[in-house]
């Protein structure tokens, strides 16, 4: 069982620092996209407590298969910032040579799966990874994250069913930010203009029961709660899967390609009590880990640091165009060799 003492004050403070860093980085990356340095960007605001909570809960032996909105979780899990930002800015140092959109990480040596753009396209693969863990009797469990909209896909239901049938060591973690682009998940009280369309009429966490295992709903704005529940779930997953639905709110647009004012009024403005940054400050103040002067100095530090980072990565060179045809197959086919002549 996880006790309060399981997590030190130092860990909590570091986690808070990462929440602040994620918030600043998010704003600056969004800004970079407005200035044309990033052709596309997926904002993070509203997800920070979930990201940092699960990142804190994942151990080196666990396998994490994330989706495209999990930047902070990757950082909290321990991926060097340089590696993550090279991916986001598609620089020549990106381990995948800038082949995917921002936030599509793939870090096999850290037990992190390759993020796929297709919503829920990774969930069935996560079950296969879990099967391999079980077959090889490997230490650790599998955690995979996804949005609320993802729970409408066939992939979600098939993956949940397989996990139940083979009793896989898995945590299905739904980051319910209450919207799939413009379509509300459960319309009530999330500010959606149209309350007749929705992702589902049934509670997401209850869907686990139909597949033979437990589902729980937690507060996704409280990173300590997210950490505790996720850690517990990862440890208990050896006895079978679990579904966690973490409730939060997507405070920004879905991506740089939409304007939320068209389909909703924001019910969680920045700085309000349900903003995960504010909720985290309050929680740590209540535990006497944080005070106002620390909040200010951490803000100043992260503001400076993230400005420097984004300025640097905006200007890093892109991958050499000749790498573009590499690594389609282990052995290059004759027609790819011919097409090398087309890249000048």
């Amino acid at each position, binding site marked *: 069982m996880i006790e309060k003492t399981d997590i030190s004050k130092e860990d909590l403070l570091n986690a808070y620092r990462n929440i602040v860093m994620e918030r600043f980085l998010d704003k600056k990356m969004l800004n970079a996209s407005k200035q044309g340095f990033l052709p596309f960007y997926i904002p993070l605001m509203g997800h920070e407590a979930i990201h940092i909570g699960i990142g804190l809960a994942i151990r080196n032996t666990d396998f994490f298969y994330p989706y495209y909105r999990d930047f902070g979780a990757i950082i909290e899990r321990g991926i060097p910032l340089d590696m993550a930002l090279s991916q986001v800015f598609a620089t020549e140092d990106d381990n995948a040579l800038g082949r995917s959109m921002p936030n599509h990480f*793939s870090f096999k040596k850290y037990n992190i799966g390759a993020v796929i753009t297709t919503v829920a396209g990774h969930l069935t693969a996560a079950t296969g990874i879990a099967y391999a863990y079980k077959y090889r009797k490997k230490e650790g469990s599998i955690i995979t994250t996804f949005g609320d909209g993802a729970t409408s896909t066939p992939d979600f239901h098939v993956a949940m069913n397989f996990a139940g049938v083979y009793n896989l060591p898995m945590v299905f973690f739904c980051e319910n930010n209450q919207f799939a682009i413009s379509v509300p998940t459960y319309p009530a009280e999330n500010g959606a203009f149209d309350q007749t369309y929705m992702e589902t009429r049934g509670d997401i966490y209850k869907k686990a029961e139909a597949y033979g295992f437990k589902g729980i709903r937690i507060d996704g704005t409280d990173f300590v709660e997210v950490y505790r529940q996720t850690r517990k779930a990862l440890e208990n997953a050896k006895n079978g899967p679990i579904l966690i639905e973490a409730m939060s709110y997507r405070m920004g647009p879905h991506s740089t390609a939409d304007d939320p004012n068209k389909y909703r009024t924001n019910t969680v403005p920045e700085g309000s009590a349900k903003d995960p940054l504010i909720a985290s400050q309050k929680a740590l103040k209540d535990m006497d880990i944080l005070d106002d002067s620390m909040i200010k100095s951490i803000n100043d530090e992260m503001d400076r640091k993230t400005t420097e980072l984004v300025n640097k990565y905006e200007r890093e060179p892109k991958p050499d165009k000749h790498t573009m045809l590499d690594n389609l197959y282990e052995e290059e086919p004759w027609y790819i060799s011919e097409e090398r002549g087309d890249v000048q």
Partner: protein
Amino acid sequence: MTMVKALNSALDNAMERDDSVILLGEDVGTDGGVFRVTDGLLNKYGKERVIDTPLAELGIMGFGIGMAMEGLKAIPEIQFQDFLYTGMDQIINQMAKLRYRTNGDYTVPMVLRTPYAGGVHGGPYHSQSGEVYFTHTQGLTVVTPSTPYDAKGLLLSSIELNDPVIFLEPKRSYFIKGEVPEDYYKIDLRKANVLKEGDDLTVITYGPSVPLVQNTVKKNNVNAEIIDLRTLNPFDINTILTSVKKTGRVLIVHEAPKMFGVGAELAATIAEKAIDYLSAPILRVTGLDIPVPFALEDYYVPNERRIMEAVNKLLNYQ
């Protein structure tokens, strides 16, 4: 032994050598697969390695891909190629692209086996020849055997490959017999097989159409060179061009429909690289451009009459 037995023998050899080889699919366990390709393997290797799955092609595909990402060698069976489309997203967007989009951080060394094409009067949903859906997906290796010997050797080579393979088994040839060694052996996946040498024309074919072409050529004493592609993508361009430059006349035979088919790619490539050697237009004899009809399947597939009409047209072309 039959092609079914040859495939079974290949799986048996591979599983014996390497405990990372895992079979999965609908009815592959106790039932041994609806065509019996996995017969007896559950008893020999146990439930952890021969897995009966819920009825969901999407799940079977993703399950196998995940295993492959974690170092196992998954060999899923999709009961009929016609039903694989419900898992097609996993093939196109995950299996085929993982190596490329991660620049090799992850690979998917997995072999997806599935029976395809006609021969059992299965109507529109047990007879499809969907090979172009896979050949037109970058990153896949698409293999199709024509004999029991090739079936075993090509399957073992596919299992050793570090990339995903779509292994299309011509169900009309499942019960043809041939010599097959019990031991482990491999066949080069990047080389076509010249089944018969000849001077007057080149017939390029593969999988389910190979026996028909061989019988037709033999019965009618045609001095044709017959090439069995074995691998559709990447196909063996050198063997094709060498033969075409010798004969100057080309016939392509496949059971899949003609429009936008494998034949179109072969013909275009030959025209691009060897048009100066051709003495006649490139012709195709293929399945008709309709879904496979239940009662009239025999009129749908290529036959001796249509092949000979094309052969004579090519030989008489001035």
